[in-house]
């Protein structure tokens, strides 16, 4: 076992004639949290889909422990890599418990019976995500944050050592965003799960990720520690955004603050002093 979980080797992917990813090289470290950021339509989601074999590369390879994932049997791969798509659909009328149980799919044979270890995996997933009390509820009756935890529980029941998540915090309130990211961090720390996620929020990405990957126009613009990637120059080049980087007062990780066209307007500050604004 190397300390590289997934390796992209000159990976190119496209829809039709249009290339989305163009010769990517990237190594994702085992047992770490990697966040992929970038402007809309830069190929973040495509990258995630290529890593989970949803898209066939036009050229290049995705290697899992040195083996090309497109050469692996689907079930075998699904026991190694779990994927949570951006907005998964739960079949209507399904209970939490049934949904989480579906995560055991790759571990079961065609007519394979349900085994004790399947129950154990489901119970463990429910426990880790704190969704045990919801087990018999209908998924459509849950709040957004609860539902996202249930989906993560399903991915956990899959018992993979790598978990790919496409924007796991979209459509969630800020408190639920933090809840989900904390949960993912717990998983990473306690079980050593390698986590790769696409995130929209740069500050949350810098705060929770060990490795930050910034993408632009189908290429890797920068990859490395958050403090080397989340810099003012990258923000200009990738997002076309003028921003300042400060230290996050809680964790001292880098945090970006946009300047905007009305950045510091002394006249306004005089009319509405800060103490009145709060």
């Amino acid at each position, binding site marked *: 076992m190397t300390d590289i979980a997934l390796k992209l080797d000159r990976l190119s992917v496209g829809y039709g004639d249009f290339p989305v990813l163009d010769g990517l090289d990237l190594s994702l470290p085992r047992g770490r949290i990697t966040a992929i950021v970038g402007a809309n339509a830069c190929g973040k989601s495509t990258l995630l889909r290529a890593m989970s074999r949803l898209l066939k590369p036009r050229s290049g390879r995705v290697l899992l422990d040195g083996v090309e994932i497109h050469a692996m049997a689907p079930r075998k791969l*699904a026991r190694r890599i779990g994927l949570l798509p951006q907005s998964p659909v739960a079949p209507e009328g399904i209970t939490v418990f049934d949904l989480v149980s579906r995560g055991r799919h790759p571990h079961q044979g065609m007519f394979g019976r349900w085994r004790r270890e399947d129950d154990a995996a489901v119970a463990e997933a429910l426990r880790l995500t704190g969704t045990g009390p919801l087990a018999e509820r209908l998924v459509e009756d849950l709040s957004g944050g609860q539902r996202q935890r249930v989906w993560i529980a399903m991915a956990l029941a899959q018992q993979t050592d790598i978990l790919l998540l496409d924007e796991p915090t979209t459509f969630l309130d800020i408190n639920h965003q933090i809840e989900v990211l904390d949960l993912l961090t717990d998983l990473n720390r306690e079980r050593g799960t390698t986590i790769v996620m696409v995130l929209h929020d740069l500050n949350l990405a810098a705060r929770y990720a060990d490795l930050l990957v910034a993408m632009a126009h189908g290429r890797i613009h920068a990859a490395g520690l958050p403090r080397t990637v989340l810099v003012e120059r990258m923000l200009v080049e990738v997002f076309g955004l003028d921003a300042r980087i400060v230290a996050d007062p809680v964790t001292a990780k880098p945090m970006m603050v946009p300047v905007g066209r009305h950045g510091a307007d002394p006249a306004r500050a005089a009319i509405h002093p800060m103490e009145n604004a709060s």
Partner: protein
Amino acid sequence: MSLVADIASLRQGRRRKRRMGLAALAAALMAGIALTLAVGQSVTPPLTVMATLLGVDTGGDAFTIRVLRLPRAVISALAGACFGMGGVTFQTLLRNPLASPDIIGISSGASAAAVFCIVMLHLSGTIVSVVAVAAGLGVALLIYLLAWKGGAAGARLILVGIGISAMLQSFTAYLLTQAPSWSLQQALRWMTGSVNGAELGQALPLLLALGIFGSVLLALRRDLETLAMGDDMAAGLGVPIGLVRIGVVVAAVGLVAFATAAAGPVAFVAFLSGPVAARLLRRNGSLLMPAALTGAVLVVTADFAGQVLLPARYPVGIVTGVLGAPFLVLLIARDNRSGGSL
């Protein structure tokens, strides 16, 4: 770990309930078949029915039961099971209880071809059934290809199916206006669905279809359920989606086409069986078997009702069609939150 124990007991409880539901459905089917065998224009005592089935010569009753009633009951049950299983497969795959093969036009190809054979080519018998099966598969394939656009999205598939079937229905209606009166009755069967004049010989192809396609579907049932969570999720869970989808569609279309060839497009059975089974079993596990049993019960009892209970004798397709209308409204108008849906 108490949670594991809870989970295990939850699962066991469901398994028990599911077995009870299936047993109840099987019992209902048996009762329906028994009624069909015993009651018709005249009532045959149960003992005579038993004796006849065991091979004792009971004179006139033997003819009534072996030639008239038994084929009717057997074909009804088998065709109903095929419709039920094929229907629930489409509903699950396309994630829409309205997307059953009879509504999205899978069976319209089979009936249009059959009516064409009868009215224009003056054919009858087995050849009509063969052509109907072939046309059913052909039209299903056509719908699939027309809906294909870098992947076959469910919504597109449904809408293309509706368009094609509207066209074929108009074609069939036109053919019927051209039909000489002696073939009109036979042709009408292909519009409405009926087991009048069923023969035991028709049971073999149905049995084979149910055996082969049915076991393909049962083998793929977990993949099918996973596919219902969207392509991305299914692929992430290790389902070879392209392969599974083709296998499932071919098997389901096969079931529906064979059943249509034997009994005509018995209206709404494919559409009703899945949702009814889901309500009876409260979503405990795969719906394939429950829907097959429900379909069989539906066709057998609807045929019985059409023959015996109603003032005039109606073919089974009319009874299910009329039954289906209020249920359709109920199904759509039900509160989404009540659960137990497909």
